């Protein structure tokens, strides 16, 4: 130790010299590439060297700049100040060289705080980069922008975060989640806005984002537990696929969440019988049947436990620990032990990991010995362990000791006592003391062992033994007078003050048991009083007083002598004590009332100290936390709440299933209803429910296919198979619902009406295969589910329960109120219903109808009351291109060829879908059978499949329509086109212009909206056109053929305006083309920067190639 400190001193001395040497090394290391000039700086001062760096940075040569930046990063890494280079460095922020740029970023983040004004120069670069088509560049721009801790740019950061949180790339969204925390620490006032973003990102389906956004949640608003409700099941289900760091954060958050939402599983009368899947669902029902029944676990609670269990096998120790603490805090007692093995496994890991894991095991082993007892041998100490590991292992061994294994443990401990590591040996003796008190059978053995240790050569061992013996004797002094005698004999050899003091105290306390020896010890002490340590002196005074009271004959003079010595001691504590004792015990005329009680005061029976684990009270902290490790409240520690006595409403976690309209079956009922009225469910519908639940469960695996999965597939079959039964059960359901829970239904309805916006958002996420018509209808009909159910069961409607009359009436009323298009829609819908019910085997075949229906729907959409749509009235497309694209060539398709074109109509299958028309032709000799799109979707998009074509005769062709949710991205949708024999993988790549829907608005509205979308949301380009070619018609034509936009009437001759919205998210896209001879300025305003830049590119080519 001495050597080491000496070393470090000498290093510090060299510090100043070293910097010079370092600089030299650095130059020779890094700039060996050729810049010979740098070598001269070897002898120059620091500032000189920076001059030279500045020159290099201002040089036009990229390589020199890079060289300079590398050296600057070297300086930063060493902690040297390089801030005066800021102006020179910041100039390079827009460099094309990506490595140079990255190094500049590193520099910028480090020094921006110190050079705020100069840092602002770089902001515009990042704003530009935020719109870069490369997601890596967008993300890194956001990272740096949000890392620049300059308060002035808070609004810009806020805007950028909002923007990026809706980015198409999950990587960018992840970065946005990180940026939230940065902004929050820079400006806590933004909290409310940030919570909005967090709320949005929590809904994100990407596993990449989940961990980061939960981290942001924990940092910004850990108390807003209400934001988690709706995402709880999703988080549980996707947990396995989240990256490991995210898992840790999510598990910790869910632990806290679960403690507030579920009732304790630790009740005495708890019944545990849900080990299999089946009871998982049954239990829910049971509870409703009988509320007062003994404890049954909430299925959501079980879901969490079940989904975290596989993570015990993670290679990441933090994940294993997180799951272990989750089980510890949430699982029923008998299930906790499954974490044991994994925790023991972690002990094979690095020293630091062992340390933390052992701490946690120590806490666990106090409460539950049984958990770790079989693994006792894993806690045997090895001589190579670090001291703190050894002590922890010993702690655990002591905790595990019981009557059965104590002999093994004591034998093991014996070898530890001899350890060369004296601190550890001392801890071992303490442990023996604890074993002795805990297990009465071995108390004597332990005491004898400890007494033997008194003759040990090592002082610390002896001292520790004395202290422990003292504590032990206090528990049963009478039987151990010979031990006290033994200790008195050893007294002369013991030099450690604490041990001497302990022996003296024992003498005094039990002087009655050793009446002959005690006065003799006092005699010896009187001789050496002046040379003793303070604590020993105090105990001598104590001993003297006690002996005086019990045996004044022999010790009176000795006591007087000692009190006199004490009176003039240097230490005022001892003088104080002496004075007090004298007044107390020596009777004189001045002594007060107390001296009468002196004996009772001094010789009062004293409670024995309790020897217990240092980890006894650690369980007040959540396991696995920093606070637990330190055994004190760390900053930001969130207390784990106690279980609620009554479970809060569990329906808050129900996620509304966005039901496809054609699917009129049980899932359409939505979860919110199921939770209320399922006593009367028929077994059939229960099954469906399960399916639905499962579907939701698997969402993380194949989010696209789950809900968009063709209803015509499974459900229509079911329908035809036992349509009677299901439909009747449905009407039953709706009736029972209207019976018992009419209020709730109405509330639901209200909710649905109030929240179309939120629904829209959900749709944006692309999971829901929602239907266009639904949003149109839901405003003026009963909640869509009940309507669709009655519609599907149209035949059974007649004989359905009369209870549902009210419902029906209201509906028919609303139907009559509806205007003509609606009835048309109903007709149209019947067609689709028919083919759903297998009445007509051939799907919508004529292109005409498939175009017709959406346009009707788009009319309908105008009627919609949803506030999101009210501002943006959709209009019919100005121009529908006739060009079709090849999907499958007949050669590759073995005779089957397919072509697709964009109909530019709102899709009937879902708000967020792009409508496509598919023409399939059979060019082969044989008829093709069962043409369909396979259920599996290889890419992330949500695809509404056309219903299978039973048979396609040779040379025949058929046109079907389908919908694809491209999620506002030009990423191709891949899917499998299948025939009976073959499977062809095909893809549809949409042009960016097809991702839009035209809308109409007034010119004033247009300029107003445009005014809102400036700054980062505006992208412009200038093109040169031949002036004679430009006429307003050609511009209009070219723009609308390139993109599906609506033309806005304009009263300015030379400005053309177009408006549209993106299909998936409904973001406004505004385009204006200003003709200024000979240039044309194209401006695109939209929140979707990616789309903007792509559109711009397309318009550029479209307008430069203008033909008159």
């Amino acid at each position, binding site marked *: 130790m001495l050597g080491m400190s000496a070393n470090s001193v000498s290093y510090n001395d060299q510090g100043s010299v070293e910097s010079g040497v370092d600089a030299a090394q650095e130059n020779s290391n890094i700039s060996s590439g050729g810049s010979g000039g740098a070598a001269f700086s070897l002898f120059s001062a620091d500032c000189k060297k920076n001059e030279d760096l500045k020159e290099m940075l201002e040089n036009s040569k990229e390589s020199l700049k890079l060289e300079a930046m590398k050296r600057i990063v070297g300086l930063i890494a060493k902690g040297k100040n390089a801030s005066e280079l800021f102006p020179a460095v910041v100039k390079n922020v827009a460099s094309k*060289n990506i490595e140079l740029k990255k190094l500049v970023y590193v520099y910028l983040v480090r020094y921006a705080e110190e050079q705020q004004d100069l840092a602002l120069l770089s902001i515009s670069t990042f704003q530009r980069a935020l719109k870069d088509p490369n997601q890596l560049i967008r993300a890194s721009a956001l990272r740096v922008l949000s890392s620049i801790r300059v308060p002035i740019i808070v609004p810009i950061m806020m805007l950028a975060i909002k923007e990026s949180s809706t980015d198409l790339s999950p990587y960018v969204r992840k970065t946005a989640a990180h940026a939230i925390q940065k902004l929050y620490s820079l400006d806590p006032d933004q909290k409310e806005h940030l919570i909005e973003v967090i709320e949005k990102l929590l809904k994100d389906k990407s596993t990449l984002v989940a961990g980061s956004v939960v981290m942001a949640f924990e940092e910004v608003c850990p108390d807003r537990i209400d934001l988690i409700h709706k995402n709880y099941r999703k988080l549980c289900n996707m947990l396995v696929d989240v990256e490991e760091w995210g898992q840790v954060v999510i598990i910790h958050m869910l632990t806290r969440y679960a403690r507030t939402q579920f009732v304790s599983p630790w009740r005495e009368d708890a019944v545990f019988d849900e080990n299999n899947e089946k009871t998982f669902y049954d239990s829910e029902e049971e509870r409703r049947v009988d509320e007062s029944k003994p404890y049954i676990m909430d299925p959501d609670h079980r879901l969490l436990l079940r989904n975290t269990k596989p993570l015990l096998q993670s290679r990441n120790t933090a994940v294993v620990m997180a799951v272990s603490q989750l089980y510890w805090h949430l699982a029923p007692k008998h299930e906790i032990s499954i974490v044991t093995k994994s925790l023991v*496994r972690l002990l094979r890991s690095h020293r*630091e990991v062992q340390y*933390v894991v052992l701490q946690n095991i120590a806490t666990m082993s106090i409460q539950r010995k049984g958990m770790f007892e079989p693994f006792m041998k894993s806690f045997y100490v*090895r001589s190579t362990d670090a001291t703190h590991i050894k002590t922890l292992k010993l702690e655990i061994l002591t905790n595990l000791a019981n009557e059965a294994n104590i002999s093994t443990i004591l034998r093991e401990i014996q070898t530890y006592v001899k350890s*060369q590591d004296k601190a550890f040996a001392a801890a071992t003796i303490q442990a023996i003391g604890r074993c002795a008190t805990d297990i009465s059978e071995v108390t004597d053995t332990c005491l004898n062992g400890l007494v033997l240790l008194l003759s040990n050569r090592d002082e610390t061992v002896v001292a520790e033994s004395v202290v422990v013996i003292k504590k032990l004797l206090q528990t049963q002094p009478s039987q151990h007078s010979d031990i006290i005698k033994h200790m008195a004999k050893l007294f002369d050899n013991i030099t450690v003050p604490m041990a001497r003091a302990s022996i003296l105290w024992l003498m005094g306390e039990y002087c009655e048991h050793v009446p002959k020896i005690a006065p003799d010890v006092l005699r010896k002490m009187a001789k050496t009083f002046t040379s003793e340590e303070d604590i020993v002196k105090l105990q001598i005074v104590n001993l003297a007083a006690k002996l005086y009271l019990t045996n004044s004959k022999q010790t009176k003079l000795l006591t007087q002598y000692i009190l006199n010595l004490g009176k003039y001691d240097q230490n005022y504590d001892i003088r104080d004590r002496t004075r007090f004792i004298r007044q107390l015990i020596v009777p004189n005329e001045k002594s007060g009332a107390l001296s009468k009680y002196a004996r009772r005061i001094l010789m009062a029976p004293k409670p024995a100290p309790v020897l217990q684990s240092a980890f006894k009270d650690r369980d007040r902290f959540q396991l696995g936390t920093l606070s637990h*490790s330190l055994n004190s409240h*760390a900053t930001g520690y969130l207390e784990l709440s106690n279980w609620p006595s009554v479970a809060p409403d569990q329906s808050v976690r129900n996620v509304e299933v966005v039901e496809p309209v054609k699917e009129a079956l049980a899932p359409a009922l939505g979860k919110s209803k199921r939770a209320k009225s399922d006593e009367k469910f028929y077994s059939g519908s229960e099954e469906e429910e399960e399916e639905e639940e499962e579907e939701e469960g698997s969402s993380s695996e194949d989010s696209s296919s789950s809900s968009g999965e063709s209803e015509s597939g499974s459900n229509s079959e079911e329908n035809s198979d036992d349509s009677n039964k299901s439909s009747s059960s449905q009407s039953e359901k709706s009736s029972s619902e209207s019976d018992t829970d009419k209020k709730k239904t109405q509330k639901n309805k209200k909710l649905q009406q109030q929240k179309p916006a939120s629904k829209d958002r959900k749709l944006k996420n692309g999971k829901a295969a929602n239907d266009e018509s639904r949003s149109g209808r839901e405003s003026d009909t009963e909640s869509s589910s009940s309507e669709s159910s009655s519609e599907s069961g149209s035949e059974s409607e007649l004989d359905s329960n009369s209870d549902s009359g009210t419902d029906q009436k209201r509906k028919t009323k609303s139907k009559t109120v509806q205007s003509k298009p609606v009835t048309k829609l109903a007709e149209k819908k019947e067609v689709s219903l028919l083919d759903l019910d297998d009445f007509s085997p051939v799907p919508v075949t004529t292109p005409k109808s498939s175009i017709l229906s959406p346009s009707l729907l788009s009319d309908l959409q105008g009627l919609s009351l949803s506030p999101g749509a009210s501002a943006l009235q959709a209009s019919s497309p100005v121009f529908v291109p006739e060009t079709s694209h090849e999907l499958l060539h007949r050669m590759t398709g073995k005779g089957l060829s397919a072509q697709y074109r964009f109909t530019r109509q709102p899709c009937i299958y879902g708000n967020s879908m792009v409508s496509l028309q598919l023409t399939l032709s059979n060019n082969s000799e044989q008829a093709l059978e069962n043409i369909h799109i396979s259920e599996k979707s290889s890419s992330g998009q949500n695809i509404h499949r056309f219903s299978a074509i039973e048979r396609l005769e040779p040379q025949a062709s058929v046109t079907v329509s389908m919908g694809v949710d491209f999620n506002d991205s030009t990423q191709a949708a891949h899917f499998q086109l299948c025939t009976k024999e073959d499977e062809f993988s095909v893809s549809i790549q949409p042009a960016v212009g097809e991702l839009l829907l035209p809308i109409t608005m007034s010119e004033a509205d247009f300029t107003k909206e445009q005014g809102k979308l400036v700054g980062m949301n505006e992208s412009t380009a200038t093109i040169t056109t031949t002036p004679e070619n430009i006429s307003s018609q050609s511009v209009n034509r070219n723009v609308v053929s390139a993109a599906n936009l609506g033309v806005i009437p304009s009263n300015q001759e030379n400005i053309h305006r177009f408006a549209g919205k993106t299909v998936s998210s409904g973001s406004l896209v505004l385009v204006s083309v200003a003709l200024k001879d000979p240039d044309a300025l194209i401006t695109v305003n939209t929140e979707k920067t990616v789309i903007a830049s792509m559109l711009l590119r397309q318009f550029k080519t479209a307008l430069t190639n203008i033909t008159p």
Partner: protein
Amino acid sequence: MIHSLFLVNASGDIFLEKHWKSVVSRSVCDYFFEALERATEPENVPPVIPTPHHYLINVLRHRIYFVAVIQSEVPPLFVIEFLHRVVDTFQDYFGVCTEAAIKDNVVVVYELLEEMLDNGFPLATESNILKELIKPPTILRTVVNTITGSTNVGEQLPTGQLSVVPWRRTGVKYTNNEAYFDVVEEIDAIIDKSGSTITAEIQGVVDACVKLTGMPDLTLSFMNPRLLDDVSFHPCVRFKRWEAERILSFIPPDGNFRLLSYHVSSQNLVAIPVYVKHNISFREGSSQGRFELTLGPKQTMGKAVESVLVSSQLPRGVLNANLNASQGTYTFDPVTKLLSWDVGKINPQKLPSLKGSVSLQTGASKPDENPTINIQFKIQQLAISGLKVNRLDMYGEKYKPFKGIKYMTKAGKFQVRT
């Protein structure tokens, strides 16, 4: 989460610092230095150190302390695990993780740290992804870069980052497609004075080196999977498949990785491959002590025990050792009192021994405890638990890969108390 990182070398100098949030003055490390001074051994520094405003979490590897500065509550294992991951990455990139290597590659180190953490939260820790973002420095690449002016930094987001198999990069191509698996088992044991086993257990790992083109999907099955009591997997392994069929099914990362670590169930008796005869004694009042060690093979299943290395921490009172090795060489460090004996291969016909005397400090009393003997050894082509790989199959790609499986048994923490 992680605020800053300081790298401290063995002599207590900070030689690198990196901040992810506002700059934390390096004076915060003074608390760490205090703890370092208090600790008798470098390993004894507590991993978590509280200071008035921060918490310091450190790991010690390759004689370098990685000290992370934390400002608020965070699971300590989270930080520890991450720091170890950083060290692994450095080792992967530079071959060794030493102060010199880090100083030489300070720019790459900085770029790596920048990618690995964003705002203190891990961003990309998967080595396959990192290697696409920042190419490891090689001599060839350095030369090429200086000539062409290209950089080590990738311009595209690695596809793995977004895919469902983030551990594997796309577009992998090899001319020779090979997959090697090493089953390495370690025996942890404590043997008491009389030679009986106090505790012994087997921990094993399956390390893989997979160089296969495209996106292969591999399955690996064992003859006797029941042996495996507790396992932990690389994230690529499909857990459900293991649960159901006890088959390892996975799309492997490219290059070297640890597929599986396991623990052999404690019911099985562990074969102890070596035995030690020892006679170490110190007499009271004499400054000489006797020291005799003999090694011999025990249950080795007919395989040779190789690379045997015996080390022992002798008591502090020992001045010097005067020994005679029948085989191999021995060294004794009078400062640390560490005796180590490099034995090599054990020849069953002629057992290696180390005999002689040790001299004690004059006047020092007889040490209480005899030293513990640590033994390291290797046995090739043997998995001591009897675990055997049944077969390895590949799906998803057309070519036929070359497959290889190697077994090895090593001593883990193998201690003999004397």
